[in-house]
C-alpha cells in the first residue's frame, strides 16, 4: 500500500485522531490551566487569556477539553477493547463448537439485543453504584452483543474452510482453532468493525454523561461538559457546543478512517459495485 493511495478524507480522519490522542496523552503538559482550577469569571467569551472562554464555574474550557479528551478516549477505548475481547471470544467459541452452545449463546444474545442499548444501560445504571469501572463494564457488555453477532457470522464463514477441518483432524483443541486458525483470518473485517464500535462508544459514553449517568464530576469529560454548560445556550452562550463539537469531530474522524478501511477490504474481495 502506498501512502498516496490513501484518500484525502482518510487523511483528515487520521489527522483528527492523532490530534485527539496527542491531547489525551500529554494533557498535563499542554493544557494552559489545571483540570479543576477556577481561573476566571463564569462563561467568559472566547479570546484573551482563555482561547475558548470559561465554563459555568469559571474553569478554562480549553484545558478541560484537553483533559476531557483523556477521560473520554480512555473510557471509550477500554469499553471497546473489553467488548471486542468478550464478543469475539464468545462468538468464536459459539461458531467453532456449534450445537447447543451456539444455540444458547445466540439466543441469549438475541434476548439482550431485544432491549434497546440506551434503555438497557439506563435500567442497569439505575441500580449499580456510579463508579468508573462499572460504567466501562456496562458499556462493554452491552456493546459486545453487536460484536458477537458480526463475529459469529465472520467466524462461521471461516470455520467451514478446509484448513480448519485439517486442524480439527490433526487433533488441535478448540482454543488452538480459535486463536491460530480463525482469529488471523477474521482480523481484517473485524478491524473496521472495531473502529466503528469505537466511534459508537464515544457517542454512547457522551450520551450517558450528558444524561448525568456517565463520568461523574468534577472529572472533565466531553459529554459531561455539554451537560454543565447547557444552561448557557438560552443566553446565547455557545460554551456547550465546544465539547459537543469535539465529540462530533472525533466521531467523524474515526468514521472517515473506517469508511476508507471498509472500502479497501471490500474492493479486495472483488465485489461488483460497493454494496
Amino acid at each position: 500500500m502506498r501512502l498516496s493511495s490513501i484518500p484525502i478524507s482518510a487523511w483528515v480522519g487520521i489527522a483528527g485522531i492523532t490530534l485527539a490522542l496527542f491531547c489525551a496523552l500529554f494533557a498535563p503538559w499542554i493544557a494552559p490551566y489545571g483540570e479543576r482550577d477556577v481561573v476566571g469569571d463564569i462563561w467568559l467569551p472566547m479570546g484573551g487569556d482563555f482561547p475558548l472562554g470559561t465554563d459555568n464555574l469559571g474553569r478554562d474550557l480549553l484545558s478541560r477539553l484537553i483533559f476531557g479528551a483523556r477521560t473520554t478516549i480512555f473510557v471509550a477505548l477500554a469499553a471497546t477493547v473489553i467488548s471486542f475481547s468478550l464478543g469475539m471470544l464468545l462468538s468464536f467459541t459459539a461458531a467453532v463448537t456449534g450445537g447447543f452452545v451456539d444455540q444458547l449463546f445466540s439466543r441469549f444474545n438475541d434476548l439482550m439485543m431485544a432491549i434497546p442499548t440506551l434503555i438497557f444501560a439506563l435500567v442497569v445504571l439505575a441500580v449499580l453504584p456510579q463508579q468508573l469501572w462499572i460504567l466501562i463494564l456496562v458499556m462493554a457488555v452491552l456493546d459486545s452483543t453487536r460484536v458477537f453477532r458480526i463475529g459469529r457470522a465472520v467466524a462461521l464463514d471461516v470455520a467451514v474452510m478446509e484448513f480448519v477441518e485439517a486442524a480439527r483432524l490433526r487433533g488441535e483443541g478448540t482454543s488452538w482453532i480459535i486463536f491460530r486458525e480463525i482469529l488471523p483470518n477474521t482480523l481484517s473485517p473485524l478491524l473496521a468493525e472495531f473502529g466503528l464500535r469505537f466511534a459508537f462508544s464515544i457517542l454512547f459514553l457522551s450520551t450517558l454523561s450528558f444524561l448525568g449517568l456517565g463520568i461523574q464530576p468534577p472529572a472533565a469529560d466531553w459529554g459531561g461538559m455539554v451537560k454543565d454548560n447547557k444552561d448557557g445556550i438560552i443566553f446565547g452562550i455557545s460554551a456547550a457546543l465546544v465539547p459537543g463539537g469535539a465529540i462530533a469531530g472525533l466521531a467523524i474522524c474515526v468514521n472517515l478512517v473506517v469508511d476508507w478501511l471498509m472500502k479497501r477490504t471490500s474492493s479486495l474481495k472483488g465485489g461488483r459495485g460497493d454494496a
Partner: protein
Amino acid sequence: MAGGGPITGPALSTGPAAGGEGLSQSAPVPGALVTPPTGVVTGTFWRRFTLRRPLAALIIQRLGLSVGLLFAVSLMIFGGVEALPGDFATTYLGQSATPQAVENIRKDLGLDKPLTERYLNWLGGAVKGDFGTSWASKNSVSEQIGNRLGNSLFLAFFAALVSVPLAVALGMLAVQYRNRLPDKIINVVSLAAISLPEFFVGYLLILFFAVQLGVATFPATVYDSMGFGERLSAIALPVATLVLVVLAHMMRMTRAAILNVMSSAYVETAELKGLSAFRIIAKHAAPNAVAPVINVIALNLAYLVVGVVVVEVVFVYPGMGQYMVDAVTVRDMPVVQACGLIFAAFYIFLNMAADILAILANPRLRHPR
C-alpha cells in the same frame, strides 16, 4: 439495535454482515426461542394449519415469538435489576442509613417480600396496565406514563413522517448517481451526520433558530390545553433534530439495500440486454428492493423510539424519555422498570413488524433454508 442501530449503517454496506443474511437477521427475533408453546399445545392441528396456510402460520409464529420475547425481556428487566448489587434504601438514605431505617424503607416499599411474589405481582399489574406507584413521588406510574407516552409518540410520529420519504428519496438519488458527485456529497454529509450526537445537533439548532433568529420556541413545553398548531410549532425543533439524526442512517441503509439488489446477477443481465436504466430500476430492481427497504425503515423507526430519550432531555419536552432519565437519577425503580418495558415493547413490536412485512414482500423468505 438502537444504540446499535445507529452505527450499523456503514457496517451494512460491506463485510460479512452485508447481503441477504445480514438484512434478514437484523431483527432480534429470529430463531427458535419460543416456537414450542404454540407447537406443543396445538399438536397435530398446528401441523395441518402450517401446511394449509403457511403464510398465516408464519405470521402467527412471529407474533408468538414476540410475545415470548417480551416476556423474557420483562423477566430480564425485573430479575436482572434485582440480581444486581445496590439497594434503593441504602442509596436513598445515604450516610444516615442505619440498619433499622433501611429495614423500615424496605418494608414500606414491599422489598421484604420474596422475589418471585414481587415479580408476579408486577407482571400481573403490568399486563393490566398498572405499573404500581413511584417510590420517589408516590404517584401512580401508569397515570404519568399515560400522559407522557402520547407526547413521545406525537414527536416520533412527525419525525417519521418527515424522515422516511426523505430518506428513501435521497437513498435512491445516491444509487442513481452512484460514484458520481451527488452520491459522494450525500455520502460524506451522511457520514458526518451519523457521527453527530443528538444533543449537539439539538443545541446547535436551539442556538441558531431559537436564540439568534428567534423563529422557534425553546423549551419545547406542551400542555393539554394547547391547540394542534401551537403544539406543532413547539415540537418543530425536536422533530428537526430527530430527523437529522435518523435520516443519515436510514438513507445509508437504503442505499446499501438498493445497491445490494442492483449488483445482483439479474440486474447485470438486464443491463447487458440493453434495457434502459429506468426500466431496470422500475421492473427488475424495485420489487426486490422493497423488502430490504421496508426492513430498514422499521429498524430506524425502532431507533427513533429510543432517540426520543435524549432529544426530550435536550428540549425539556414532557415525554417518556425524560420521565425515565429523571427516575434513573433518583433510582426510582418502578418508573425505570415500567419505562424500560414499554420502550422495549415498542422496539420489539417494530422489529416484528419489519420481519412480517419483509416476509409479506419477499416470498422467498416464506420458505427458510
